[in-house]
Every structure is written in C-alpha cells, then in structure tokens.
C-alpha cells in the first residue's frame, strides 16, 4: 500500500490530460468538418476557419497543464525522485484533477459544436468574424473556471 497515494495522484493526472484531450480532439474534429465544408465553397476562408477550429483546443492544453502541475508536485519531473505521499494526499490530488478532466472533456465537445456553427456563420457572413469568435469563447469560460478550480485545489494540497 506504500505507493497507493502516488498511484491515485498519477491517476488524477492521467484523467486530466486524457479526458480534456479527448474532448478537445472531438471538438476540433467537429469544427474541422464544418471548416472543410465552408472551404469547399471559399478556400480563402482558411485563416478564419482555422482560428475558429483551434478554439476548442485549449481544454486539451489545460488538461496537460494540470497533469504537468501534478507531476511537478510529485517530484516526478527531473531527477529529484518522487515525494512520499499517503493515500489521503493522493486522493486529494485526484480530486483536484477532476474539475478540468470532466469539464474540459465535455466543454470542448460543446465548444466544438458552437465553433462549427460559427464557421457556418462566417461561411455566409465573413464580416461577422468578431461575433463568431465570441460564441465559442462563451463555452470556454467554464473550462477556464474549472482550470482555475483545479489549480487552486492543487495548490492547497500539502505534500512532502
């Protein structure tokens, strides 16, 4: 049972990177489909389409960020060696990872749908780019809040 804490914490880091990453991949995929559709009509819209397609990608980065944060906290990066962790602390770190894991996963998918709709919109009205960017950003708010929650929780957990 000596390493249960470490395992739990790593499980949390894995969830953060994996779930948020999956969400972003799906979201970007959805938006990419719409972008390709619009570009068959007008290849010149590549620039705006790419920006809108990239928007649901941030959740994956947030997940990665939290995963690195955890690895750093555990001392697994660099040669210093892992810190000692009891199972309670491990569970706390796992809990800290959940906000960005779950919200990142789900919000990226929905942001991808909104991005796809926005891409359709600039297909018809290229001048509405400003509004088209804001609509997906509204969804991302909750991923940012989840990221913040995860960060603050992680900072609060005492290890070592």
């Amino acid at each position, binding site marked *: 049972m000596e390493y249960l804490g470490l395992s739990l914490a790593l499980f949390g880091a894995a969830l953060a990177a994996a779930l948020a990453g999956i969400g972003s991949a799906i979201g970007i995929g959805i938006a990419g489909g719409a972008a390709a559709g619009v570009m068959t009509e007008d290849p010149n819209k590549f620039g705006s389409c790419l*920006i809108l397609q990239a928007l649901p*990608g941030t959740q994956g980065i947030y997940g990665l*960020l939290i995963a*690195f944060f955890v690895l750093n906290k555990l001392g697994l990066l*660099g040669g210093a060696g892992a810190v000692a962790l009891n199972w309670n602390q491990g569970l706390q770190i796992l809990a800290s990872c959940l906000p960005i894991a779950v919200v990142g996963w789900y919000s990226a998918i929905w942001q991808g749908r909104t991005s796809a709709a926005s891409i359709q919109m600039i297909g018809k009205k290229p001048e509405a780019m400003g509004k088209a960017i804001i609509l997906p950003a509204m969804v*991302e*708010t909750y991923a*940012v809040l989840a990221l*913040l929650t995860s960060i603050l929780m992680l900072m609060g957990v005492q290890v070592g």
Partner: protein
Amino acid sequence: MGVARLKKAELYYHKSVHEQIAAALQETGACQIISSGEENHQRPSDIEALISKNDEILADVRYLTRTLTPHYVDPVPALDRMLGERPEVTMAELEELAAKTNLKAVCDNTRAVEHETGEVRLKLSDARNTASILSSLGFFPYPLSVITEGTKTLTGLIGTIKPENVGGIRAALGDFSKYAQDTELIVAPFSEKEKPAEVYAALIYSRSIEDEIRDICAKNSLSPIEVPSSLTGTADEEKERFAGIISELEAKEAELAGKLDALAQENVPAVQKLSDYYNSLSARYNGTAMSDETDSVMLTRFWVPTDRADEIRQKIEAISPETELTLDDPSPDEEPPSLLNNGNMVRPFNILTELYSSPKYRGIDPTPLLAPFFWIFFGMCLGDAGYGIVVFGLIMFVFRKYKKIAPGVKDFITLFLFCSVSTFIYGVISGSFFGNFIDAFLPPLIPLKNALMLVDPMTNPMQVLGISLLLGVIHLMFGLLIAAYDKLRHGEIIDAVGNDISWFLLIVGLCLYGVGLGGMLPPHFVQIGGAMAIIGAVIIFIYAGKGEPNYIKKVINGFLALYGSTSYLGDILSYSRLLALGFGSAVIGMVINLLGGLAADIPYVGWLIAVVVIVGGHIFSIAINILGSFVHPLRLQYVEFFGKFYNGGGEPFTPLTLSQEFVNVKA
C-alpha cells in the same frame, strides 16, 4: 474622439461634368452616397448606359481572374502582398492600360485553350476506358474485328460470366450440336483454387444463329460488354496503339496547361490592375446612379465628415464653377452612418468595436472606454516579458520592412504592438520571462527578477485572483457609470438612478463593506459601505416595482430585481479568467523549459534537442496564448462591459472608394 460628425451634402451639377464629379467624389474616399429613397427610382439614362457597358467588360475581367489566377505564379510571396507590397498605380495610368489592352483577345485566347483542354480531357478519358477494357482482353487470340465488325458469316461477342456458369454454357452449346462446329467459346484462364467473381469470355458464332446464341447467353448469365468499334487488331496490338494515343493526348494536355500558364503569367498582372479599375468604375457609376436628374442638371446626395467638406467643395469647384453644394446637419429623424474618429493611440482599438457592432451616430463610441481595459487584460493573459519582447520585435521588424501596409491591416497589427507592451510590463511584475526561463537557465538574473516582482501568481495565486476580481469590479462599475451618463444625457434621470446608479451603490458598497470587515480598510468604511449598499438595494427594490399598481406584485418585482445581483456575482467571477489564462501561459512556458532541460541531459545531441524544444515550444506557446489572450479579454468587453451600456446597432460609414483588391490605386 468618438463618432465623427457628418454633414448631409446635396450637390447640384450640370450633366456634362457628371463623370468628373463622380470621379472626384470617389477619389476623396469620404463620401457615402445616399440613395434617393424612392422605391422606383429611375437611374439617370447616361449612367445606365455606362453601367451596362462596364458590366460587360467586368464579366470578361472576372472570367479572366477566375480562370487565370490559379495558373499564375506570383513572383512576390503572398505574405508580402498581404503586407502591402503591391504595384502602385494612378487612375490615369489604369485608364491608359485599359485603352491599350485588348481584353477581348485575351479572353478569346483563354476560352479557346480552355475549350481545347476540355476536348482533350474527354478524349483522354475515353482512351483510358478503352485501355482498361483492353487490358482484360489478352486471352482473345483473334483480331478484335471479329467482334466489332465480324466476317461475312461469323460474328462474336465478349462478356463477363461467373466461373460456375462456364460449364453450363459449354453444355448448352454442346447440346446445340448442329451449330457447334460453327461456334467457339473462349474463356479467359482463371485459377480453380481462387475463383474470381467473374471472368471474361468470348463467343464466336455464325450470324445465322445470333438469336439462339443470345438466348443461351441470357440463360447462363453471360452479359456482353460494349467493345469500342474502333478496335480491329488483336488485343495486344490495340493495347500498344492506345498506349501511344494516351501518351499523345497527355502530352497535348500538358502542352495546353503550359499555354494556360503562359497566358496567366503574361496577362494576370494587367488583368488584376484592370479588375481594380473596372470595379472602381462600377462602384462609381452605381453610386452616382442614385442621383436624381432633370433635363440638364443632376443632384447627388451624400454623407461627408464635417472636417472633409471643405476639401470636397474645392475639388468640385475646380471641376466646374456651375455647381452648388449645400451642407446640412442631419435632421433628428435621420440616422446617419457612423464613422469612428479616434486618435492614434485609440484608433487601433476601433476594430474591437467594429467587430461587435458600430455605435449609432448619436450613441457613445465605446472604443476609448474599452481600450485601456483591453490593453491591461491582454497583458495579464499573455503576461510574459519574453513573449512581449518577441511580439514587439516581430511587429517592429514588419513595420520597418514593409512601408505600404494597408491602413486597416496596420491598425490591427498596431493593436498587438500596444498589447505587447502591457504583456512585457505584466511579465516583469509577475516575474515571468519565457515562463521560468530565468530560474531554470539564468540563475544569476534571479535577484533582478525578484527585485522587480510585485505579484507572484505561482506561490500566491489568491493575490492575483483578488486583483483580477477587483479589476472586474472597476470595469463593471465603469460600465454602469457610462450607462448612467448616457441616460442623464438624454434626460432620463429616473432610469439612470434606478437602473445604473443603484447597482453601482449596492456593489461598491458591498465591496467596501467586505474589504472593511476584512481589516484592509479603516473601520468606518464598513459603515459607509453598508449604508451605500442599503441605499442601492432600496432604490433597486422601489424602481423595480415602478408602474405596477398591485402592491404584492411590486414587492415580488422588487425581490426579483434584487435576485439579479447573482448575475453581477457571475460577471465579477468571470474576471478570474485573467488569473487562469496568465497562469496558463506561465505554466506552459515552464513545461517547455522543463522539457528542454530534460532533453539537455541526452548525451552529445542534447543541447541541440533542447534548443529545438525550447524555441519551437515557445513559438507554439506564443501563438496559442495570443489567441486566448485576444479572445477572452474581448469577451470581457463584449459580454460583461458592453452588457451594461452598449448595444451598437449603427450602420458603419461606407464611403465610395477606389477598389484596391490587387493594386494600390492612387487618385
């Protein structure tokens, strides 16, 4: 500052000079022609004729642009073009070019080449089909003319059949013994182990039994294929012949493509210039087509910025003294278009307002109000001194290298130049230089970094969270005050107090109360804050019940309005993204440095990998974080800030201008 004042101009002039007048108005780029507003407005007949003639030429120009541009290899890179490296021409030069260019001839040439290409492609696809049929007819030992032409007595067919039906058809032909001597069945060889779904089979028979043979074929499901009638030799001979035909056609196709490339290389530069020329003319004619006319006089109405009116009057009077220009202020029932008129420091932010919606002519221009907040927020989100330096340096390099950047593009780039400064400042304050580059690789500089640090989001994020939320409160309260000012300006005192000032009192009061309780302010702020909050809440409560005769409903409305304070809570918390995004870029930078540091431990090539990881990683980080740092502060302006006072809804000022799609046209 703000929305530019416009005059409504009415210009009377003699018909004989209408082209010069229209050209002059277009060249100033400061006149938005007003449509006459009549439903069945009759276009002046002279202009009608010009338009239809111009449209005809434009159709050719568009055809050429569409067809030739994909074949054109621009010697100047696309990025340089975007940044203004384009030919500079005057309208007079363009007119000369138009006169000496035989567009019709170029069009005819291009159409001929296109047409021929189409024909060659058609032939090529036929030949390829035939070749693919031929490749499966190798089993047939006789010349194909037996099938396609036949002899006096014999004819034949080729078809496909399932291997298991081959026995059946042989038996049927055998039973049909009196004809068997005249009939030959040839089946393409196939392996018994791996039977293909279908095999080719040929049948040669006497013309006299055609009907019976067809019957047998149908019963044993041998379905004949169409053998092109041009095939007469053996399959192998024909295969060779068609390989020759195909390579000949392919050579022809390549030659035609070369011709099109040459046509494009030769003509596209001129066609692009002419495209701008004729599009300019089209805009000009369609603009003046909105004029009214009598037998000899025309009347054109347009909006013009007040400060440009004199310049236009001089230009017009230089053309003909027999003109009359009257300038009037817009009447209260008119809704003129809005033109943002901001100084050099604010103008780059115009695009942020325009992306949302232009203000109404008589409305508030939010640009100077949002500019400082956007600047600070962007800086906090990107928040890295190193990234600030990179962006600043890159933009300064672009500005030095490219002198002819279009004004709109230049303003947009300048926006990021400004924001790179705030990024640098916040990076210094928060001790972030390419993430934790200084801690990781430049330990001697740590004391300098620490000396300049005012906040430390890494070890004390609550401090930065507090600053973010405080900025949020300031931003929102500023928005409320603007809304109140706007209402007071229009004499709506009760609405200003009930809707905006009341909330201002409540929220500022609550903040003072809370901060005072926390011991960060002298204790009497607790009382002041509390009093403000109560006054605010009472006003909100009363104002919500205004106009409601039923007392119970008054009370319900009042409580509902106070419940709206939760939306302010949400608004304020929304500013926590400033911490999160700034934190995000710092941690991504840290991760990149960490990976670089790990890579450096690899023997021999480690340093190289480390450099690649660190440089590439930070470039990626800058790109992805600029997107986030642009979008999120923008959202704070649009949703939280504009939500308090701004709706936009104005028509942007769209003056009659010269078309500059491909070249820079000077008057």
